[in-house]
């Protein structure tokens, strides 16, 4: 069995400017922040970020890495709005493809299933269609005479054709993984990580700890905690604390004090430079040392 172990820096080394990159997790929860930080330190630029947005989006916008964001929202959960994202939008520095969060799910699902679109009611009547003029409707081919029409209101009905959201690369973070590329989520919600991986050309898992192949579901955890199988994975990197400062239970909760400091750094360019100098433009080892120091001084 292939050994897919790699490093955060090697993952980022496989990315290119202009790529469309999917980032797993949801809001300020289980985000692959070690990779996000490494992208901030890299010379990558002009990225399209596809995410259930949290501080991954805000941090990459603040670092000037982003041309466009595909999302339904950007939030820090305990802080409703990410001020870095707000600043980028309010200064017109980033484009957005804003869609309903269920449309977003179907876009990843369509890419994962290799179909060009999936139909949904979500989006009909809303400004999601006005602001994304390339989105199209699709008319059901099942008309009034069809044996497949159960609800007469569905005959010839027009629905949104949510296009496949194809990704050049996807990165997700898990609690545990094995060298073969299976990924374990010990929190109750796997979010949409399998679909990000399924929608992508190059698929990367970062994790708190790599354990021996075949030991993820060893009796203390049921198989249902391993939603990511190795057919979805090209590389696995161990990076303890790699989701910090987002929540990654049961390994750690959200570092609320740190998140506040991150949000406050949006106040002005000098604040951001100080924050970036201390926590962004440093190696991951240095970052982890500094955040441990502020947590247990």
């Amino acid at each position: 069995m292939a050994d897919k172990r790699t490093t955060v820096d090697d993952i980022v080394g496989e990315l290119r400017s202009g790529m469309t990159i999917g980032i797993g997790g949801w809001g300020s929860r289980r985000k692959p922040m070690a990779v996000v930080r490494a992208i901030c330190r890299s010379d990558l630029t002009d990225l399209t970020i596809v995410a259930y947005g949290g501080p991954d989006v805000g941090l990459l916008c603040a670092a000037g890495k982003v041309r466009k964001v595909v999302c339904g929202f950007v939030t820090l959960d305990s802080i409703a709005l990410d001020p870095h994202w707000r600043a980028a939008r309010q200064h017109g520095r980033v484009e957005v493809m804003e869609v309903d969060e269920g449309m977003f799910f179907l876009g990843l699902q369509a890419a994962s299933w290799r179909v060009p679109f999936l139909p949904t009611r979500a989006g009909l009547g809303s400004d999601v269609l006005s602001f994304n003029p390339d989105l199209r409707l699709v008319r059901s081919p099942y008309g009034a005479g069809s044996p497949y029409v159960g609800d007469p209101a569905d005959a010839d009905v027009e629905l949104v054709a949510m296009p496949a959201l194809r990704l050049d690369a996807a990165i997700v973070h898990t609690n545990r993984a094995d060298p073969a590329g299976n990924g374990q989520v010990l929190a109750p919600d796997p979010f949409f990580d399998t679909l990000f991986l399924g929608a992508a050309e190059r698929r990367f898992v970062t994790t708190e700890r790599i354990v021996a192949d075949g030991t993820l579901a060893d009796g203390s955890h049921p198989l249902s905690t391993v939603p990511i199988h190795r057919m979805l994975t090209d590389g696995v990197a161990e990076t303890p604390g790699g989701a910090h400062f987002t929540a990654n239970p049961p390994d750690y909760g959200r570092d609320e004090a740190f998140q506040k400091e991150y949000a406050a750094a949006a106040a002005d360019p000098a604040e951001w430079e100080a924050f970036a100098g201390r926590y962004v433009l440093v190696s991951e080892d240095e970052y982890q040392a500094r955040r441990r120091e502020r947590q247990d001084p």
Partner: protein
Amino acid sequence: MTDPLADPGVTRAEFCVVACADVWHGAGEIMASPFGTIPALGARLAKRTFAPDLVLTDGEAALMVGAPPIATPPAELVREAAMPYRSVFDVVWSGRRHIMMMASQIDRTGNQNISAIGPHDRPKVQLVGVRGAPGNSVNHTTSYWVPDHNARSFVEQVDVVSGVGYARAAAAGAGATRFHDVRRVVSNLGVFDFETPDRTMRLHSRHPGVSVDDIVAATGFALRIPDDAPETRLPTPAELDLIRVVLDPGSARDREVRS
């Protein structure tokens, strides 16, 4: 038990809780998804009284047993089934849900905005994003909670249609109207519905202590006003006891709506 009729101290926040609870009257076995403290209290009050089959989430990835106090620590919640976000869409698109979302703006025909204020390509104020509002509003019953009713939140036309109102749903066709049902809007001043011939917003009831003139002055469009707009109903003694003693002894409700 407290007797509200003898007790002049029923607060505005408590009227709001009861008005929110009442949106789930007769809802049956569906998911109630309240956003905001007062809607959360309303859903729990409804479940403990007239809507016992309501399904509530723990705010994370599970359905919870009962309707515990809103300040219950997550570790003390009892859960009955898994409900990760991916499964939430199964519920949303099956229609077995009545959500009460908040609205930064809401307009005459029931469009809601939580996305942005000003032009969308470069907003004056970036808000959270449309989230699930477009899909929610055309798939299942939707109500709104606006804790600060004023002419900037109740507007003629929202800047970004996130949740879809009646006119926009009608214009979008049968796919949008089939399951569309914007039921109620509850604000700190009153309760509103769309039970008018042209499906524009109407005053349903005004909270005690609020006049029709107050509401008209705080609304940025021509609201339908019935000849005899009733007052929002009083909580029963049992309901008031549940709100004050059981569900919210810390009075979080008063921090969302002041009397």
